[in-house]
């Protein structure tokens, strides 16, 4: 346990050093490259947030994009108000004559930052309470969260007067913090995102190795047994769900700043599934691996589409299929297996408990 904690700490430090010094140096501090990479880092937060609920607690949340979108819209609402004198333009087009009540507090930066974390956490918590009190588990969590995502996206698109509908929120100002106007092409902005990711990862690493994380893993392996030990399973599940939602909201806020607009496609099904893919490629058992997965897949996507305009989608698809077939635990699985074999060269390759249990889950389609 503790030695594993040490490994994770070392990995975290190496990761932080690489994104803080290695990456910018490799990119010659070029504004465009840093901006592109900052986008990957923001997405990495969404991916590691999913790893917390999926990898640690076994709750596959297919609605991660909904909470990501909430954070993204919170930030966009603030920046839109900053960019417009009086009513935001799209409201005029939709015959809205007064600033809707829900928009008013977003004038304040402090409120926006809080709302970007707490609203996703609250909504995530609300769905979690209903699900986990009713002891819903396994594939049904995925279905319910997916349904929630679809409904939420429809709602956002339909409330055009408040959300900008299909076009989303565009024409945003740049965020102005005290003494600093955040230019998304600046090195400073890159460090802001990199710093956020590192903090998020530190929280994730700490949680997974705390007693809280241990109980979550126990719940993942056998919820009933954990319940009989006297733990309130639903409370633990709700807590990790809230936290994961808040982190996703955080990622969404940064994402809006990188791309300078918020779009309902950020809460689309395909985006949500993409997060699952990043998480799976990196390895859902480790938050660092999940973050790495997001960065690698997005970089690969960027480079592949650059070199092969014609077939990059197809190639990505093939890569994902290969990963699922030959690396079911993602990059993290490969690393731990290799490390194990190096330590015990004589022992035959053995599957870990986790893997056998997760394979069982895949086969039966549900968890205990």
């Amino acid at each position, binding site marked *: 346990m503790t030695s594993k904690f040490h490994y994770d700490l070392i990995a975290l430090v190496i990761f932080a050093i690489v994104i803080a010094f290695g990456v910018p140096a490799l990119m010659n501090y070029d504004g465009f490259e840093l901006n592109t990479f900052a986008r990957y880092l923001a997405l990495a937060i969404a991916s590691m947030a999913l790893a917390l609920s999926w990898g640690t607690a076994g709750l596959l949340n297919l609605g991660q994009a909904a909470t990501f979108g909430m954070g993204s819209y919170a930030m966009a609402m603030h920046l839109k108000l900053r960019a417009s004198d009086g009513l935001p333009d799209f409201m005029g087009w*939709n015959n809205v004559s007064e600033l809707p009540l829900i928009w008013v507090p977003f004038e304040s930066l402090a409120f926006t930052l809080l709302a970007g974390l707490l609203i996703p956490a609250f909504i995530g918590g609300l769905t979690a309470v209903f699900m986990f009190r009713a002891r819903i588990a396994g594939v049904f969590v995925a279905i319910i969260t997916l349904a929630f995502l679809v409904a939420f996206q429809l709602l956002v698109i339909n409330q055009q007067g408040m959300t900008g509908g299909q076009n989303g929120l565009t024409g945003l100002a740049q965020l102005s913090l005290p003494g600093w106007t955040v230019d998304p092409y600046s090195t400073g902005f890159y460090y802001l995102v990199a710093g956020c990711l590192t903090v998020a990862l530190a929280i994730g690493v700490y949680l997974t190795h705390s007693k809280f994380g241990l109980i979550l893993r126990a719940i993942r392996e056998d919820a009933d047994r954990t319940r009989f030990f006297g733990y309130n399973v639903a409370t633990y599940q709700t807590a990790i769900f809230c936290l994961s939602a808040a982190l996703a909201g955080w990622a969404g806020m940064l994402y809006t700043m990188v791309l300078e*607009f918020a779009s309902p496609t950020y809460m689309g099904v*395909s985006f949500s599934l993409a997060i699952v893919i990043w998480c799976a490629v990196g390895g859902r058992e480790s938050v660092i691996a999940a973050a790495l997965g997001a960065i690698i897949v997005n970089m690969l996507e960027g480079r592949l589409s650059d070199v092969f305009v014609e077939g990059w989608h197809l190639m990505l698809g093939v890569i994902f299929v290969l990963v699922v077939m030959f690396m079911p635990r993602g990059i993290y699985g490969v690393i731990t297996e290799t490390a194990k074999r190096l330590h015990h060269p004589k022992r035959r390759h053995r599957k870990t408990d986790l893997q056998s249990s997760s394979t069982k889950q895949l086969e039966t389609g549900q968890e205990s």
Partner: protein
Amino acid sequence: MKRRDFLGGVGAVGTASVLSAPSLLTTAGRAMAQGNDIPVGLLFSLTGAVAVVESTLHNAALMAIEEINAAGGVHGRKLRPIIEDPASDPATYADRARRLMIRDKCVSVFGSYTSSSRQAVLPVTEQRKNLYWYPTLYEGRECSRNVMYGGAVPNQQQDVLVPWLVENFGPRFFMIGNNYVYPKEENNYCKSLLSELGGEVVSEEYVPMGHSDFSSVINRIRSEKPDVIFATVVGDSDVAFARQYHAAELDPEKMPVFSLTRSEVEVKAIGGEAAAGHFSSAPYFMGHKSPENEKFVEAYKSRYGGDQVTHFVSEAAYFQVYQFKAALEKLDPANITPEAIRDAAVGLKLKAPQGEILIDENLHTHLWPKIGQWQSNGQAEVLIQSEERVAPKPYAAYEGQTCTGEGLVKA
């Protein structure tokens, strides 16, 4: 490499990906070097939801670029198209636009069909003072100094159409559109025209994007018996609407649909028989008779296949490249910047397939509105052609606001 070739060469792609692995790691990509060429970006989705339409825009723009290069380029320099596939996703549009404008240093980017993708590209375009050539008809009410708008705005689609409708069909309008900004804005403008002409709106309905069940809408049309069905339904929804309208045996003779969005592409999907008898308003139809259009259609068909169609957006994607070329020719070859191209483009006249067009100082295009009636062969017969070129007024529905050469002016 042609777009469809890759399916035949998956194995080759696999090998190629191994061979070119180093290029995956460098940031250089395929854009660098090649000396004297003029880099232009093509940003049309080749995959995803809007690929059906956008790939035709891509084809038309690429054809124009290659025609120009075959004729010797501009000032002896070739145009070098840098192709990106934003996969119908706004975030990917933003990402690829950055690549084209910042890294590849394109002096102009041609792209996109939907408003949401244009909006996604706008921040980087304005910040980097680049030039984005947008060929699609749109809702107006935008006045960027960094976008060249090649499609019609509401006043160019409706100023000829609506009075003609009231006179020839009657004053009772039934509005049906998808629930987003374009249909709402077109309907806003239509209502302001109707109030002057003494028309009335009997019903105004919006269905979600991609909606495909129109039975209740058709029932209401049946009971209301409007004179005019004013449609701003787009894409798959429009195809479903037209087919169900036909299946419900509503007679286009008695209750025709007038669409602002239905082009040859949609009609091809609807089927000629179901589309026949209904109308569209657009500045261009494939069946328009002019020497420029005959040349355009013939070149397009011989290049991409005899069953391909041209339409009012692909025509603009095509002529915008020629506008770009004409602007470049006016410039000193040593001093080509996006803003210089924009300034040179203003006031430029060009013989396009639809007629002689002109770029307004507000960067929108003066166009030739037409009304066409669809025939069972999938082509439109042009019934009405505007007698004069119509100037673009992107803020026509908003009193006191005008888009000028200095940007938006509020009175």
